[in-house]
C-alpha cells in the first residue's frame, strides 16, 4: 500500500520530466549496451585465441623426456654428505622415448572419473623428400576419432576428409605449409624418410591448417598404427598420452598425481601455456574497466538529473513532509526514481547489447590462419548480462543515494517560510 503510493508519486515526478528522464535512461542504455557488446566481442576473441592453442593442447600430457640421472653416483657415497658435488659423469642412457606400460596407463586413465578422454600419440621426426631436397618434419601418429572428439582435429583439416586417414592404409594428412612446398595435391603419394633411414611412401588424404604457420610447415598426421609401423615398433609404442580432464582447474593437481602414479613426466596446461591465461585475463580486465567507466559516467548523468529535479521540486518535497511524509518516504521516492531510470535503461541496454553483439557477429572475418572462423567471434555468455544488469542497478542506486539523502533532509519550514 505504502509502496504503491511511493511508486505512484515517483512515477508522476518522472513523467513530469519525461525528456530529462529519457536522456538519463538513454545514458544507462548506451553504457550497458556498449558494456555487453564489448565484453561479448572481447570474450569471443579471447575464446578464439585461446582455442588456437588450448583446444588442441591436452590438459595433462604424459611423456618421457631424455634426462640425466638425477642421482649421480657420488651422491650415494657416505663420505661427502654435506659437500657440493662437482663430479657428474653419468649421462642420459639410451632409452626409448615411449611410455612404458602404456596400455595399462591408458586403461587406468579411461576409468578415472576426473578424465573426459584420453588420446595416445606417437611423435616421430622425419624428412619430407621433395626431389633432391629433404625438409625436416614431424609426424604425429594419432587415434583419429579420439583426436577429433577431444582436440577438434576435424576443424583444422581444411581439405579432404579426416576419416580417410583411418580408412586408407598408409595415408597422411599434411600440414598446409609443408604441402605447399611439396606441391602436393589430394591423392598424391609423397615420400618420407625416417630418422633411421627407412623410406616410406604415403598417400595424401587431407591438408591440415592449425593457424600457426611455423607448425603447419612441419607437422603432419598419420594414424598411430602407421607411425608405429614406420618406426618398426609394436602397437604399445606411444610417446605421449594426452588427457582431457573434466575440470581444467584440476589439471595441475592431476598432473602431479599421474607423475607419481605412472612414473612418467606429466605437464599440465596451466604450466605449459601460462602466457595465454595472462593475455586473456588482461584483455578481460581492460574490457571490464572500459565498461564500468561507461557506467560510472552514466551514473553521473543520473546524479545530475536527480539533483536538478530535487531543486525544482523543493516545494513539493516540503509539502509532502508537511502533510505527513517522513524523510524516509521522501528518500524512497527519489531512490525509486533513480532505480526506475536504472531499470528501464538497463533492460533496454541488455536488449541493445544483444543486438550489437549479434550485429558484430555477422561481420565477415576471414583469416588464413583460422580456417574455421568466418565472422567475428562473439561470446554470448549470460554472465555478462547478469553483471551488466547488476551494475546498472548498483550505479543508479549510488547515483540516486546522495540526491535522495539531500531530499530527505529538506526542512519544510525553511522552504515554506522562504516564500
Amino acid at each position, binding site marked *: 500500500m505504502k509502496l504503491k503510493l511511493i511508486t505512484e508519486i515517483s512515477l508522476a*515526478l518522472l513523467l*513530469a520530466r519525461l525528456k530529462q528522464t529519457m536522456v538519463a535512461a538513454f545514458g544507462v542504455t548506451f553504457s550497458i549496451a556498449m558494456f555487453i557488446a564489448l565484453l561479448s566481442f572481447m570474450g569471443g576473441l579471447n575464446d578464439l585465441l585461446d582455442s588456437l592453442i588450448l583446444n588442441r593442447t591436452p590438459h595433462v600430457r604424459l611423456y618421457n623426456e631424455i634426462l640425466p640421472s638425477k642421482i649421480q653416483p657420488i651422491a650415494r657415497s657416505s663420505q661427502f654428505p654435506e659437500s657440493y658435488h662437482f663430479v657428474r659423469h653419468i649421462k642420459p642412457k639410451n632409452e626409448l622415448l615411449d611410455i612404458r606400460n602404456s596400455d595399462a596407463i591408458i586403461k587406468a586413465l579411461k576409468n578415472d572419473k576426473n578424465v573426459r578422454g584420453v588420446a595416445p600419440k606417437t611423435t616421430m621426426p622425419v624428412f619430407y623428400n621433395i626431389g633432391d631436397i629433404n625438409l625436416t618434419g614431424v609426424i604425429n601418429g594419432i587415434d583419429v576419432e579420439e583426436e577429433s572428439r577431444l582436440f577438434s582435429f576435424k576443424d583444422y583439416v581444411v581439405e579432404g576428409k579426416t576419416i580417410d586417414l583411418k580408412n586408407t592404409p598408409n595415408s597422411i594428412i599434411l600440414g598446409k605449409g609443408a604441402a605447399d612446398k611439396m606441391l602436393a595435391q589430394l591423392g598424391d603419394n609423397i615420400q618420407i624418410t625416417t630418422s633411421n633411414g627407412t623410406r616410406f611412401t604415403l598417400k595424401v588424404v587431407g591438408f591440415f591448417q592449425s593457424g600457426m604457420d611455423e607448425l603447419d610447415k612441419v607437422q603432419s598426421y598419420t594414424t598411430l598404427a602407421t607411425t608405429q609401423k614406420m618406426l618398426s615398433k609394436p602397437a604399445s609404442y606411444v610417446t605421449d598420452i594426452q588427457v582431457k580432464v573434466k575440470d581444467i582447474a584440476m589439471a595441475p593437481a592431476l598432473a602431479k598425481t599421474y607423475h607419481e602414479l605412472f612414473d612418467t613426466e606429466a605437464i599440465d596446461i596451466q604450466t605449459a601455456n601460462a602466457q595465454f591465461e595472462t593475455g586473456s585475463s588482461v584483455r578481460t580486465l581492460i574490457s571490464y574497466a572500459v565498461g564500468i567507466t561507461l557506467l560510472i559516467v552514466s551514473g553521473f548523468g543520473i546524479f545530475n538529473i536527480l539533483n536538478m529535479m530535487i531543486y525544482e521540486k523543493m516545494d513539493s518535497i516540503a509539502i509532502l513532509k508537511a*502533510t505527513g511524509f517522513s524523510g524516509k518516504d521522501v528518500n524512497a521516492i527519489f531512490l525509486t526514481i533513480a532505480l526506475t531510470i536504472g531499470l528501464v535503461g538497463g533492460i533496454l541496454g541488455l536488449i541493445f547489447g544483444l543486438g550489437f553483439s549479434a550485429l558484430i557477429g555477422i561481420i565477415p572475418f576471414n583469416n588464413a590462419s583460422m580456417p574455421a572462423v568466418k565472422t567475428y567471434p562473439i561470446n554470448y555468455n549470460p554472465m555478462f548480462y547478469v553483471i551488466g544488469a547488476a551494475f546498472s542497478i548498483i550505479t543508479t542506486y549510488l547515483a540516486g543515494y546522495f540526491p535522495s539523502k539531500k531530499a530527505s533532509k529538506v526542512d519544510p519550514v525553511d522552504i*515554506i517560510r522562504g516564500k
Partner: protein
Amino acid sequence: MEKKKIIEAVDICKSFHDPITVQVLNDVSFAIRAGEFVSVMGKSGCGKSTLLYILSTMDTSYEGELFLDGVSMTNKIDEELAKVRNEKIGFVFQFHYLLSEFNNLQNVMLPGLKLGKLTPKEVEHHAYEKLRILGIEKEALKYPNQISGGQKQRVAIARALINEPLIIMGDEPTGNLDKKNGDVVFDIFKELAEEYQQSLLIVTHDPDFAANTHRIITMEDGRVIKTPSD
C-alpha cells in the same frame, strides 16, 4: 462543559543563533480546546509564524514542551512526528503548495493515502466529499494550473481536511488572495468551525479576519500579550 485541550504549549522559548542570538519566542504558554476557532495576531516579525511551525511539529529546535492531544511532542523522532502531522494536523499555507503533477482530487487524496487507514476507493470518496463541502467538486479532475488562485486555496483546504484532523493550522491563508476570495476562504473556515466543530488556529495580520474568530491571541516581541478566555 470544559472541552479537552487539543494543543497545549508550555513555556516555549526559541532563539535564532545565526548570525547573532536573537530570542524570538519567550515563555509562550497557551492552550486551544476542541472546536475553537483561534487567530494569532501580531506585527510582522513578532514570532507568530515561528510559533505556528513549532506547534505544527515541523520545527523541533525549541525549549519548553508541546502537547498535542495530551501527548508530548518534544523529543519525538522525525518519523513519529511525520505520522502525527499526517493524522492530526491539517495545514493551509499562504501559498497553496499543490503538486502540479497530480490533479486536484489526487492532491487532496495524497495525505489520506499516506495514512493508509482507508482503501483508496474510500479515500477518493472522502476527497470528493470535502471538495463538495468547499464547492469545487467540479474542478476535481482538473490540474492545479487550470484553476484560479481562490480555487487552489480551497483545494489546499480540502487536502488539510482529508484525514479529519484534530486541528487545522493556517499561516496567513488569505494573504495571497484578493478581498473577494479571501472572504470566501474565511467563510469556509467559519463554516467548518460552526457546523463541523473543527478546531482552527490561524496566523494572520488582518484585523478584520481576526475579529470574526472566537478568540484572538495577540503577540508582541515573542510574548503572548493577550489570550482572552483561556
